[in-house]
């Protein structure tokens, strides 16, 4: 029986993980794009990212693209596994209530 993940279940963090897991493994998502997608402020997004990073679910990487600072975020293997288990647990809740 899969278990729900308290950290991921929070709606904003669930969306952050969804966006990251939608990419191929190794692909990193731009901070600015993520902020726009979720309609958040820098501070709010930063706080949720910090929470997920603490749990080891993602990594935040600061780099330069064409001499401009950019921040990219990537889901870790642990984060992908936790997300997948959370999704399975959600599906089990739906499946269970339909029985």
């Amino acid at each position, binding site marked *: 029986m899969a278990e*729900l993940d308290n950290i991921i279940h929070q709606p904003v963090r*669930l969306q952050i993980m969804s966006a990251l897991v939608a990419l191929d493994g190794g*692909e990193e998502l731009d901070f600015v794009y993520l902020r726009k997608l979720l309609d958040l402020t820098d501070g709010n997004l930063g706080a949720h990212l910090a929470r997920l990073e603490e749990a080891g679910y993602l990594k935040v990487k600061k780099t330069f693209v064409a001499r401009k600072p950019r921040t990219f975020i990537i889901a870790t293997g642990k984060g992908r596994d936790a997300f997948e288990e959370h999704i399975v647990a959600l599906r089990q809740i*739906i499946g269970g209530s339909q029985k």
Partner: protein
Amino acid sequence: MNVTNDDAVQSLAQVEQTMARTRKAVAAAYSSPLLILWGLLWVAAYTATHFYLKYADVIFGVMAGVGLLGSFLVWPRVKRNLPVKEPVEEKMNLRVGALWGSLFIYIFIWLSIFAPVNGMQINAFVCTAVMFAYVITGLWFAAYFMVWLGFAVTATTLAGFYLLPAYYCLWMAVTAGGLLLGTGLYLHVRWR
């Protein structure tokens, strides 16, 4: 944690929506600028050819030159504005470049073997061969809008070739060029 059935349904719907939006934004960021560029060039070249048929070779030569140069100039900007960073980007670019380079070599080989007798045959052949590459690229990257775009332009090319030969170039400007341009604009506005 107490999660109801409704909460679970809502969460899964949000997950699917966010994943789809992210994939679409990445696909649009890669392809919309190039589709807009080539769409504009196709519209211009086919329209010009309809009115100045004897200069067709020059018109399409200029279009190909401007298109390739424009693509090289636009590509660094596309890369700068991507919402993602890929670890194998350069390697992938080389593979995509090799696919298109090989296609053009084979187009010349097939043209020399089959020796089409008129410009419309050559044009329809090159156009459908390029659309075949769209389909392959779309399948390769799971960018299915490119598969559908490839099939749609192929269908309009065949329709123009067999049903409206007298207006082939004008038809291609509106339908094939319009599909490339329209798809590029749609992706830019709706998916990014």
